[in-house]
């Protein structure tokens, strides 16, 4: 009703273009909004209303999605939107002071837009540049090593109002920093070599070829011997998921293959959001063909014809190179129809970009996001292998897992199993950062000890290592003999090192803020609990803590463990519990009382009145303050 009148507003060309590119599909809402964000620098209300009208969905749904993702701004931003990465490694490299200085020099307050509308500055979660931090995002483009010098340069470019496309290229140059190669990083495979090997695995069995050709077009090559031969090889390899949970890859693929529905999807989870992890950044930048070979092999095994890469928004700069790789593979017959000349072997891949949400790394939240909704983890069962993307059987695998599958196609399952330990076959790429001389990627066979990694990376006086990021485990020097393996220290890859100059309380507080910021808010325990945890830690940080707070934290943890909806909530207390157990003095020395200290400081509250009256005599102070 009231809408008809407002229809008079001229249509937004950016909305029209985004809608056309995305086929006017409400399922592409996140991509449409992300493109509008890039165009306008924020999401103007009129544009959102137009999107809702054109897609035939409610404005409330559009606003709900826009309000979920951190990179989608519902308020005007500066012409230059500068986001400082706020992972603990960025902080260790001085990001907080650098940001304060940057803000002062541009006359802008953090979280606000400068008076002239030129610049806005805020923080963002880990950008995956821990090995070359501090990390910075300017209008979505990643800048590594954003130290004092670079920030001066950035400031000058902003004051010159130079379009970001014209900024010096070296500002955006991101290193791979591969320090140690093993089977995966040193594979040296040519594009398509692994797919070819997978097809040839069954070539000896001539009769199966016809069966495979016939059934493929019908959806599931149930009776095809070729995919089964490859799947058995994956099974023999003992490959387990590299995203952290360690689910057996062959079991996942078999379940998807066995699901009754015809259409299947293979999805690569490249939403590498765990603070301290950056291995996928390098795999996507320099080993994209290996990944795509792996996806194609997964598709071959389960019978999928469509693949998706969910690329985290922080890696926006990888979109064009990846699109170029996809195009090159299409031309080479490695994507598209009749791959490698095999009739009926069709597979293509498209890329979806995230928009700033850690929880979308959880596979069912990722699917929600892919379908154009808020990234809320789904209730399970049913599981994605039977009811995944668009309700169809779907395999969701980590980047590294799919790369490993490509290696197995070439070298075989027995070869892969011969690397690593009994329960953890193969290699693991560690993202080593923090207090080490040589940060970067280190690929080891599973079973390597923490100490070996520390030595090779040049760590000295190490106090603690956060293995697998804040959702993983924090260990101290007495545990450096422990091994990186599913049976001891499982990891998604982060390996963040703290030397004895670091304050582990502040490390835990940074991680707690991260979880509260990234909680999707769906369930009560995580939504409220992570926020309460932050409140408690901040109170201790302000010097108002007591034993009461330590007890309160230990009360919160079982609630999150027992009742949170997904892994984010289950693990949100880990950094605090681990550090409380191992570095309790870091907490205790901050406590002001053994019983209880109120957060409200009466004497401090009188400061303003003292200033106004120009008094500072004893009578103007509250004496009862402990």
């Amino acid at each position: 009703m009231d809408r008809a009148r407002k229809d008079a507003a001229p249509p937004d060309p950016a909305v029209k273009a985004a809608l056309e590119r995305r086929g006017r599909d409400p399922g592409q809402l996140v991509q449409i909004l992300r493109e509008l964000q890039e165009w306008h620098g924020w999401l103007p209300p009129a544009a959102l209303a137009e999107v809702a009208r054109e897609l035939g969905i409610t404005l409330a749904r559009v606003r709900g999605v826009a309000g979920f993702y951190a990179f989608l701004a519902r308020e005007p931003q500066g012409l230059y939107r500068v986001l400082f990465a706020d992972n603990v490694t960025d902080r260790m490299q001085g990001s907080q002071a650098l940001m304060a200085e940057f803000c002062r020099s541009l006359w802008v307050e953090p979280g606000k837009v400068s008076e002239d509308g030129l610049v806005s500055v805020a923080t963002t979660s880990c950008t995956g540049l821990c090995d070359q931090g501090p990390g910075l995002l300017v209008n979505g483009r990643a800048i590594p090593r954003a130290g004092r010098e670079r920030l001066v340069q950035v400031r000058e470019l902003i004051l010159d109002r130079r379009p970001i496309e014209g900024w010096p290229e070296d500002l955006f140059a991101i290193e791979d920093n591969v320090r140690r190669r093993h089977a995966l990083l040193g594979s040296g495979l040519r594009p398509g070599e692994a797919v070819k090997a997978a097809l040839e695995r069954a070539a000896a069995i001539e009769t199966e070829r016809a069966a495979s050709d016939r059934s493929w077009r019908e959806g599931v090559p149930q009776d095809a011997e070729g995919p089964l031969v490859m799947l058995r090889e994956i099974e023999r390899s003992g490959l387990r998921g590299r995203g952290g949970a360690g689910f057996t890859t062959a079991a996942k693929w078999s379940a998807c293959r066995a699901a009754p529905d015809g259409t299947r999807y293979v999805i690569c989870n490249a939403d590498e959001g765990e603070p301290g992890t950056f291995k996928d950044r390098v795999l996507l930048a320099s080993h994209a063909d290996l990944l795509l070979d792996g996806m194609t092999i997964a598709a071959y095994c389960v019978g999928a014809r469509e693949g998706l890469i969910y690329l985290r928004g922080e890696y926006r700069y990888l979109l064009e190179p990846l699109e170029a790789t996809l195009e090159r593979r299409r031309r080479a017959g490695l994507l598209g129809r009749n791959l490698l000349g095999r009739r009926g072997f069709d597979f293509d891949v498209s890329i979806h970009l995230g928009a700033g949400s850690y929880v979308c790394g959880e596979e069912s939240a990722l699917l929600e996001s892919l379908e154009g909704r808020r990234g809320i983890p789904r209730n399970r069962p049913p599981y994605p292998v039977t009811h995944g993307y668009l309700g169809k059987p779907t395999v969701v695998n980590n980047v590294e897992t799919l790369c490993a599958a490509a290696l197995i196609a070439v070298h075989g399952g027995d070869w892969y199993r011969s690397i690593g330990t009994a329960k953890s076959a193969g290699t693991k790429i560690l993202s080593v950062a923090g207090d080490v001389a040589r940060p970067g990627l280190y690929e080891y066979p599973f079973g390597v000890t923490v100490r070996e990694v520390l030595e090779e990376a040049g760590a000295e006086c190490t106090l603690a290592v956060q293995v697998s990021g804040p959702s993983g485990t924090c260990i101290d020097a007495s545990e450096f003999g422990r091994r990186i393996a599913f049976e001891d220290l499982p990891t998604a890859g982060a390996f963040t090192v703290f030397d004895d100059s670091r304050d582990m309380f502040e490390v835990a507080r940074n991680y707690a803020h991260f979880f509260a910021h990234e909680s999707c808010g769906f369930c009560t325990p995580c939504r409220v609990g992570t926020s309460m945890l932050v409140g408690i830690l901040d109170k201790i940080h302000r010097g108002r803590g007591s034993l009461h707070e330590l007890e309160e934290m230990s009360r919160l943890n079982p609630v999150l463990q027992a009742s949170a909806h997904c892994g984010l909530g289950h693990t949100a207390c880990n950094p605090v519990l681990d550090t409380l157990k191992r570095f309790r003095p870091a907490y205790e020395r901050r406590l002001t009382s053994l019983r209880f200290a109120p957060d409200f400081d009466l004497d401090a509250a009188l400061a303003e009145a003292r200033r106004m009256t120009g008094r500072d005599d004893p009578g103007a102070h509250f004496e009862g303050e402990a």
Partner: protein
Amino acid sequence: MSERATFELDGVEVPFDDGQTVLQAALSAGRYIPHLCYHPEFTPHGSCKVCTARVDGRTVATCTTPARPGMRVESETEEMNGLRRTLVQMLFAEGNHFCPSCEASGNCVLQALGYDLGVMTAGFRHMFPVRPVDASHPDILLDFNRCVLCELCVRASREVDGKGVFALSGRGIDKHLIVNSESGELGDTDIAVTDKAVEVCPVGAILRKGLGFAVPIGSRRYDRRPISAQALDDAPRPREGGHD
């Protein structure tokens, strides 16, 4: 009774039909498991987690866990009720809930759960969020201070009223209810006072105007009977038939 599959709830066999979740089966068998965001007329979605129980050793939300034959559910334990108490305390601390001045007092599921579970103290520091009230609609008041984010109005407006008046935006502790109009005000939506979305609010977030205190405090729904008894009356009881 014919051959219905059963599971064990606190030592008692509970029969269930195919497709029922643990909570649904329990309620229709006359067994109460505390719950908040679950409503018998809507697809369960499991966000409040108040119905959490130990099922075969794992703690899960019973409203979304499909019933399976032979499963062992522990619900009426001090551990589980302690957990529920904490979750209810969290909800109280998160919003601005002042029962004595709330029109929903006595009809409020959050308050009733508090009484039933023995919540005696706040337990946590209140967050006292600043949330405006939306009084733009002539017949309906929307008080975000009391919203517990159960999404029942979202589901009701979409599934029953066919309107989509309500949705959620923001995330984490900033998650909040929004309404479907360009102004963001309820008065500019197509909501009607007779909508299911208005009726279904379990707390005092969506209130009908002009009806204040029509039923005196002391004679209201949960004043008369504790929620643990009332919820069983409300549950669909396919076999024995309901109380009318």
